[in-house]
């Protein structure tokens, strides 16, 4: 039987008949995206509150009686795990991946909508299991978000009985959910693009989400295996990760396991995870910058190859998280080298973003504020990464606030600024209404300046040797007297940033009711999701006929065109083609025929 591309096939769509199948058990990728996004943001708020509790303790020790040392460790653990996996991964891939992939590819839905729906519900189960650990005896695990054995299972660690079991179980369930969704995203990008949309015409947002999902599919298995083995250690008393340990004078029933093995498995997942979060952010921010600067993205091909190169390299750098764990020195040499090589494609992307802005006709809308803010925080966090990637500099800085400041800048603040940029940018399409511009800009300044006020001082604390994960610092000689003052200032800034996030929620809920009705394409953007017949798009996305793509996604400010943008589905006969530099017209014609 001859092969017919999906875009040319008649597809049966699952048509909802009742409110429940339309909004609850929905197979529509847009509804699933909003379910994913809503759940991720809700659980992220829990993590935000946990971080504020920790900051209250650090900033004003012995003033509040909110948490004790045990719940401090539990807060550290849950804050980290929720933010990295249940908020950022789920929101970027489950939320934006689900919403944007089919729309930007000109598809009616994901290739396997039923499994896509299942992915969300399994994710919800994993979130419920995770949150359940707050309510079991002993509370959630307090082993730190990296869950290093042997302390995860030792009696001194809070949540060493039920908490850790629920955490591992929740991670395993999350991985199942991610795999079901991830397979959909990857295959939809590969096989469900509309006519004319070649891989090299895809918007960078799709490229970022696509490569990140591939990373996830190959990195999460290591975490799954680590979780299963640790569950065995905890529940069955096996000794995969547990060496012979003596606890309070009694030898435990463990023998001969390897704690370092866990670290290798964890970071083989953990480092790609950084890019699972960062690559979608890179992609989304590229589209936001290009649209609001009214200029094509600088070096599109380079940007794509940089995303792929970063993705590949991210699998061979994991042990730079383990310089102090005890490794052969040559390993440190190898992993430091690969780590620093990643800086090359990453720096290339930063230069290209800046060059995209260069002489652009920049519209300072709220998404653009956040996108430019991201460039600042990302450069900042990236540069401290160069310090920590070197073994000799990492050794003294390990486990200090310098590390905390680094990863919060690079994979906390930066992706979250992109998330807000993207949420404001696509809000008109998702809801059909405009957000309140003034409130959004106020939200930006509070968040941007506030996070700098939090994390900049932390670098200094780290250089002074202030250790992280300490419930109370007390007084020691090597810490300068101003340490406590700095901590107090950081806490005030953190409370300010935390509270100012309310602006976002007020803005969203206010705009849903009272916002101006949004234009189908308020930003004058080229990508397909802005060209849908309905705003917000209805089930099936495209009405009777799928779109056909004639050009790349970045034809902004083309000389001789009627407007300063040419949507991707505008034929060459209507508007000039200018991307000869990137596409050979002859070759292009043959593909349009195909």
């Amino acid at each position, binding site marked *: 039987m001859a092969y017919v591309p999906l875009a040319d096939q008649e597809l049966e769509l699952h048509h909802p008949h009742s409110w429940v199948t339309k909004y609850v058990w929905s197979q529509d990728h847009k509804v699933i995206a909003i379910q994913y996004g809503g759940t991720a943001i809700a659980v992220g708020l829990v993590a935000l509150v946990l971080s504020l509790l920790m900051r209250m303790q650090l900033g004003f020790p012995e003033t509040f009686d909110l948490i004790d040392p045990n719940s401090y460790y539990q807060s550290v653990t849950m804050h980290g795990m929720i933010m990295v996996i249940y908020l950022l991964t789920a929101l970027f891939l489950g939320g934006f991946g689900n919403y944007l992939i089919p729309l930007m590819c000109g598809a009616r839905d994901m*290739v396997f909508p039923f499994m896509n729906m299942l992915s969300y519900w399994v994710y919800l189960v994993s979130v419920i299991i995770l949150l359940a650990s707050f309510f079991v005896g002993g509370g959630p695990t307090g082993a730190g978000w990296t869950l290093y054995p042997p302390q995860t299972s030792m009696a001194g660690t809070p949540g060493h009985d039920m908490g850790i079991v629920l955490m591992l179980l929740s991670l395993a369930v999350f991985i199942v959910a991610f*795999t079901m969704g991830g397979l959909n995203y990857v295959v939809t990008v590969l096989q469900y693009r509309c006519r004319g949309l070649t891989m090299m015409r895809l918007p960078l947002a799709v490229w970022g989400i696509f490569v990140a999902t591939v990373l996830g599919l190959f990195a999460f*298995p*290591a975490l799954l295996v*680590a979780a299963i083995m640790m569950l065995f250690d905890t529940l069955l*008393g096996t000794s995969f990760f547990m060496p012979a340990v003596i606890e309070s004078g009694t030898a435990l029933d463990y023998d001969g396991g*390897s704690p370092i*093995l866990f670290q290798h498995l964890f970071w*083989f997942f953990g480092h790609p995870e950084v890019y699972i979060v960062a690559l979608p952010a890179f992609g989304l921010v590229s589209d936001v910058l290009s649209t609001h600067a009214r200029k094509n993205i600088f070096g599109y091909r380079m940007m794509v190859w940089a995303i792929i190169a970063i993705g590949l390299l991210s699998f061979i750098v994991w042990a730079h998280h383990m310089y102090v764990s005890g490794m052969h020195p040559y390993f440190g040499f190898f992993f430091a080298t690969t780590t620093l090589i990643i800086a090359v494609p990453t720096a290339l992307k930063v230069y290209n973003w800046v060059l995209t802005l260069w002489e652009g006709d920049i519209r300072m809308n709220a998404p653009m504020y956040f996108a430019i803010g991201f460039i600042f925080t990302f450069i900042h966090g990236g540069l401290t990464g160069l310090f920590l990637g070197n073994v000799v500099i990492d050794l003294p800085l390990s486990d200090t606030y310098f590390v905390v400041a680094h990863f919060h800048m690079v994979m906390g603040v930066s992706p979250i600024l992109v998330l807000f940029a993207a949420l404001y940018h696509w809000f008109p399409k998702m809801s059909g209404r405009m957000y309140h511009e003034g409130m959004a800009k106020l939200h930006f300044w509070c968040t941007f300046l506030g996070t700098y006020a939090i994390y900049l001082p932390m670098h200094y604390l780290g250089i002074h040797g202030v250790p992280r994960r300490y419930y109370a610092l007390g007084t020691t000689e090597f810490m300068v007297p101003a340490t406590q003052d700095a901590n107090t200032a950081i806490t005030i800034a953190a409370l300010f940033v935390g509270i100012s996030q309310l602006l976002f929620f007020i803005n969203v809920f206010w705009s849903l009711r009272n916002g101006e009705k949004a234009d189908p394409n308020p930003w004058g953007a080229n990508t397909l999701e802005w060209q849908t017949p309905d705003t917000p798009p209805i089930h099936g996305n495209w009405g009777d006929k799928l779109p056909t793509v004639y050009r790349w996604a970045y034809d902004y400010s083309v000389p001789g065109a009627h407007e300063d943008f040419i949507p991707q589905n505008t034929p060459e006969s209507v508007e000039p083609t200018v991307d000869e530099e990137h596409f050979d017209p002859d070759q292009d014609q*043959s593909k349009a025929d195909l």
Partner: protein
Amino acid sequence: MSEAAATSMAPSDGVTGLVDDWTADKQTYHVPWGKAMMWIFLVSDTFIFTCFLTGYLNVRMTTTQPWPPQSEIFALSFGGAPIPLILIAIMTFVLITSSGTMALAVNYGYRRDKFRTIMFICATAFFGATFVGMQVYEWSKLILEEGVRPWGNPFGAPQFGSVFFMVTGFHGLHVSAGVIYLLWVARRIWAGHYDKKGFEIVEIAGLYWHFVDLVWVFIFAFFYLL
């Protein structure tokens, strides 16, 4: 698709064809989405088994006690003399045979011979179920007669039992899921689900089945022989 375009895009052979195919920046690749999805899933699953096996090799190095002699533990006696690894050898043979019947099922599927397709799928499922059955026998023998537990065993390193139950258990789950999947596919073929769509589903299920076999070969080599 116009005739001219079709010829110009016809793949050439060998390495050149491979390079052409991957660099052509095509609109879509010539593979059904279900098959692409299965391939990607299998690569992901390969990472899972690779992590399991690397983890096993690692604890085998770190454990402080001697590693038990597998060939003696997994020996069965027929008429007095113990034959090392005989049960595992039979299990391996059964599983490899099932790969053969699966390949036949795929072949008859593409010939649209529904009856033979279903027959060979059921034969594959039968061999798979036999494999799981023998595994159940192996497990119960080790647990009940030899006293092997996940947390310890009378022969030496406790990790031996841990790895054994974890890895063969995980693989056994894959085989069991495969048997259910195959029977489900057979039922849908019987019901005429694929008469219009084509029988690619048999090949997709076959991919999964061959993968499970291949993984077993590695488990056999690394755990039972090494």
